[in-house]
């Protein structure tokens, strides 16, 4: 069993974990016809529960998995899984129906009536009562612990954000706090607000579909499931004291030491490549990074507009397209930065600590 634990620990390393999540996402979006089959998904769910149950025999795993604080994470994982499956399954069925020229499932239902009273209000009331009962039961079983008074002078060994912000905290590993803490979260909010205005496509309104909205689903799902949910999972169960990485079966040793010799792009270019030391002029020093960033943000959008996204560009028009592509590129910069870190120990592409500006 120990070798299995070691394998899982190894596979949970952020590099492999994240790459795995991306690959899995690609496979999920490609082979949804297979995995959304009720039998398949039931088997996977049961197997996952059995595996989790077996893993609980390991004290290190059990310690984190059974923490009362982490109950919402398990609820989140299974509920996100369920609703994602539901959407995909219904989308698949609808696609099939529509391919045969039949009305989709939602269309079939929409002939029926839903009265405000009793149907809507009554079912809302039932939900409220049930959920209240659930919350009361939860708080009776898992009591909130009483801790020592907070000490402003002492930082706890593990300083973690609330669970729903752990994805953001993971971004902090790769980005300057300004970026990870202010700019990127701000753009997430702005992007969510702006999305209805980019999205002119009326398809998929009021019914589930995959085929008709494949790329929208792909990009959105990647941002939500891979860059948000998966990173929360990583942050909860695999980031221990000092925000160091720990496999699920590893003991959270607060004295763990990890070599962190990250370097900036300017150092890679001027010191490692040309071996001439850093130029004293900031702009010269960071010129490569600045050029690369500018290229990334200015060359890729027109390039894509001419090639892959030609159709989309034509549909959306210049302004909408530009805004959308900027948001997508910024989202994509996160995995790109992660991989640069893992492969080259790259700290910042542009690093101007003199003005607190780091990319």
């Amino acid at each position, binding site marked *: 069993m120990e070798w299995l634990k070691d394998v899982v620990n190894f596979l949970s390393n952020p590099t492999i974990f994240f790459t795995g999540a991306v690959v899995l996402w690609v496979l999920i979006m490609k082979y949804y016809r297979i995995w959304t089959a009720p039998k398949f998904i039931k088997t996977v769910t049961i197997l996952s529960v059995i595996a989790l149950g077996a893993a609980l025999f390991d004290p290190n795993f059990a310690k984190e998995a059974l923490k009362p604080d982490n109950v919402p994470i398990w609820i989140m994982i299974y509920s996100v899984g369920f609703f994602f499956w539901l959407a995909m399954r219904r989308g698949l069925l609808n696609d099939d129906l529509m391919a045969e020229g039949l009305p989709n499932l939602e269309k079939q*239902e929409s*002939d*029926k*009536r*839903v*009265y405000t009273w*009793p*149907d809507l209000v*009554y*079912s809302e*009331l*039932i939900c409220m*009562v*049930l959920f*209240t*009962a659930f919350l*009361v*039961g939860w*708080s*009776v079983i898992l009591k909130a*612990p*009483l*801790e*020592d*008074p907070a*000490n*402003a*002078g*002492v930082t706890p*060994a593990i300083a973690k954000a609330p669970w729903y912000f752990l994805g953001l905290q993971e971004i902090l590993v790769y980005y300057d706090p300004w970026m990870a803490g202010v700019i990127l979260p701000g753009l997430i909010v702005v992007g969510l607000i702006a999305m209805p205005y980019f999205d002119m496509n009326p398809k998929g309104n009021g019914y589930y579909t995959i085929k008709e909205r494949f790329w929208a689903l792909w990009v959105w799902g990647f941002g939500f499931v891979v860059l948000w949910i998966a990173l929360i999972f990583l942050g909860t169960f695999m980031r221990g004291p000092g925000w160091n990485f720990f496999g699920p079966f590893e003991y959270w040793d607060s*004295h763990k030491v990890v070599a962190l010799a990250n370097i900036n792009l300017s150092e890679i270019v001027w010191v490692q490549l040309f071996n001439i030391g850093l130029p004293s002029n900031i702009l010269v020093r960071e010129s490569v990074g600045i050029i690369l960033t500018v290229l990334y943000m200015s060359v890729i959008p027109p390039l894509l507009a001419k090639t892959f996204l030609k159709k989309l560009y034509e549909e959306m028009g210049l302004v909408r397209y530009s805004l959308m592509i900027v948001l997508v590129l910024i989202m994509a910069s996160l995995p790109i930065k992660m991989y640069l870190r893992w492969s080259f120990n790259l700290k910042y592409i542009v690093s101007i600590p003199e003005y607190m500006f780091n990319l």
Partner: protein
Amino acid sequence: MAAGQPPNNKETVYNSRVLSKWFAIASILLLVVTIWAAIQDYARPWKVYQRQTQKIATAVNERKLLEADKAMNKQQLEKIEKDIVGIVRKQSEVTKEIDAKIAAIEAQRYGVTKRYQTEKGKLDEAHYKLEVAIKKRVDNIKDLMAQYKKDEKEVAKLARAEERVRLASEKAQADRKDILSKESELDSQMKALTRTRDQLNKAIGNTELNLVNIARNAPLLDFISPTVKINQVILNGLYDDYFFNKVPRVDRCMTCHVNANMAGYEDFPQPFATHSKLHLIAGPESPHPAEKVGCTVCHAGVPQSADFNNAAHTPRDPVQAAEWEAKYHFHYSHHIKTAMIPLQMTEGKCIQCHAKEVVLEDAPTFNAGMRLVERYGCYGCHKFAGHFEKLATEKKSGPSLTLVASKVDADWLKKWLWDPKSYRPSTLMPAFWQVHNNSDEASLERGRVEVDAISHLIMAKSKKYEPLQLASKVVGDAARGKTLVAQVGCIGCHAVEDVVVTRPTNPKEPGYKDPRVPMFGPELNQLGSKVSYEWLVSWLKEPKHYWEQTAMPSMKLTDQETADIAVYLLEKRNPEFEALPVPVANEAVRDDMVVEFLVGQMPTRDARVKLASMSLEEKQSFLGDKLISHYGCYACHAIEGYENAPNLGAELTVEGSKEVTKFAFDNVEIPHTSRDAWIYTKIRTPRIWDVGKKRDFQAKTRMPHFGFTSEQATALAAIVIGYENKNVSDEMTAKVDARKEQIIAGHRLINQKNCIGCHALENKEHPLGGEILAHYADKSEGPPLLYTEGRKVQADWLFKYLKNTNIMIRPWVKVRMPVYGLSDNQTTTIVKYFSAYDQSPSLFASRQGNALSDSEIRQAEGLVKELGCLTCHAVLAPGADPSGAAPHFANIKARLNGDWLIPWLENPNSIMPGTRMPALWPNEDPLDEKSARIGVPGYLNGDAKKQIELIRDYLFQYPGKAELPPPEPLPPKTVAVPATPAAAAGR
């Protein structure tokens, strides 16, 4: 019907019937969880404990009620009740009359008062008008004035009438009260008689399971006015530090430990039990009442929590931990940084308020811990606050090494350093080598080099010493030496295998010695393997000759006795130690080490060059210096050249408040949330932290291994934990007044000189010391008990005696009061200590006897003869057997205090248990200490009290000159040459 109403036949998504079913299910579920929550709340452990406590209290109080009922004077009660009935009947007639009278007066008074008030109003108006007129200078004020005068008269008349009625009413009321007072007097008599019963009844009413209490404590209703409720005390003298604000602490411990401060629950299990030291702690009469000092000030833990685990209980040992796991799901909480202190270490917390004190009554662990810190010299390396901070400037705990080369040879020193316990198993010297972190082959090799270098340097620094020689040529005899060692008092401080001492286990018995505290001096069972005859003779004769600061006193030995003891002690050898090989340094390792240290000062290449130029001795000295600094030998031993070397250990002044996260637990398997477990482990096995760690020499722990027992380590850990950030207000800390200051100074000196090795001090309920007394079956053979000493002897006599003990007081006692060579200051400290402890009214009072007339003296002489005092108290003829003798009377006038003699003559045994002095005036009732004493017939009408006083007075006039200790010679005269004219003028 509005437009757009769907046709009725249209199918709906939801079925109302199904929804109703779901609603029913959901509602039932909500009801169930609500009941569940209420049950959970009702069954909270503290509520369960309180309900159980109420049952227990009811039962206990009911039993007390039966006893109280039995003890009550029933007849008296009945009589009072009857009287009350009689009085009440009589009263009713009288009061009726008075009441009618009062009613009439009151009616009259109402009318008069009303009229008076009306007229008064008019007068005020007239007054006002008159004043306005005067102000406006109206010419004609005559009318106004007349009106005013008239009103004034009227008001005065009415005022008099009102006063008359008021006085009449008051008198009637007073009469009524007078009549009723008889009843109330009887009433209060009855109440006094039934007070206990009534109180118990009230208490039972609060706790018994009656309908009212059930309703008050019922689930969901118990928020209104429950009797089962959180008990809390707000401690205004104790703060919680919330980092920007200090807030009074709130202790809720007594929510579960309800009876902690109440007597009568001693035999119940926790949490119902009474505090185990109620007279001292928690009790309302104790110096530390729970309402004022709370619980967490000593026990720590989370004060505001009423849950077993959240309150952070800490088990005493693994057994208790297992028991708690089963009973309370006990676990160490990683959230809580101020867990409770395990019970066996709680006494360390005394330090919080008793920061300056060294000895506390009834706190054995505190006392043992303080002595252990002092004896093992922890304060040499670690900075402490309070007593030890001062001690560190006064003395080092180990012997001086400035003359050591005359005492031991280099090989002995190396073997000793290598493993001190192999020479003397009970030594206080800790092991620096062959312990947890340096027992591998490479470290051992290195260790031998270290031992070689250190011993070389110590020997090289040692100065020449000429031992004292005996004046006469005498040949020692071991057998005589053996007797002497057992007799003169060596065993007060030293263990000797030939003298087996069985100690009592009861701390209140003289001869008890806390097993945690080692003997004061080294054991004397191996000396032959260490020192020479010449050195030992000199040492025994005058220890201060070799080492000025030694605590070893001169035992007033003759040359013959000195030689006898020396021969005896040198016969004792340790053959196993002698057979051990001397650690030999490896040349290559030595060279590597020299380079290692040189590299700290110069580039590696230069270091190599330097090494090549060094002689062997230079290398040894160089390494020796580095290593003495590394290990801190100078912390305990005086070594020339290291007088100002720094403290090596961590500062411990607030160790008890140190963040648990700042302790490195490394690989040691102890709870990682436990400060006390870490400190205990550190003390017990200081080097354990390096096990399983890869650390180079400089990074390794260097605190040596003392080989403490578990009990010793516990006591020491208690003290270390006791030093913490001050969270107690100044008003709440123990006051150190002038008297206390003197007692503390005394305790400090007593510990340093080990007076308690021989004498039992302070009081017989809590004797301090007297350890040697275990050796004596007849306690009067041993050193005298010094209870009441401060009131017993005259201060100036004690001063002279302590300065020079060469005077015989108790001829039969073979153990000797040695000469300590105390300074004037030290002597004064001890005299003041006794006087302060026993609350002697004044150091300088001469409270002796009254002058007697000739006839009184004759009577006294007769009485002395009758009582046979002189059979023992006569002056001993030269050469006579002293075994039956007692202190002779001529000395009393210079030595004792008259006030003290009275209780002594009445009952000597109560002052000095086990004394040979009989009680000459026995009690009439031998069992009752307070009953009258039987006088000797024929003297002063047989009045014992007068006889005792007479004897007292007589003793102070007893013929003969009192012997006094010979005065100290003045220091030799020196001709002072003033350094500057100013200094001369300054005199």
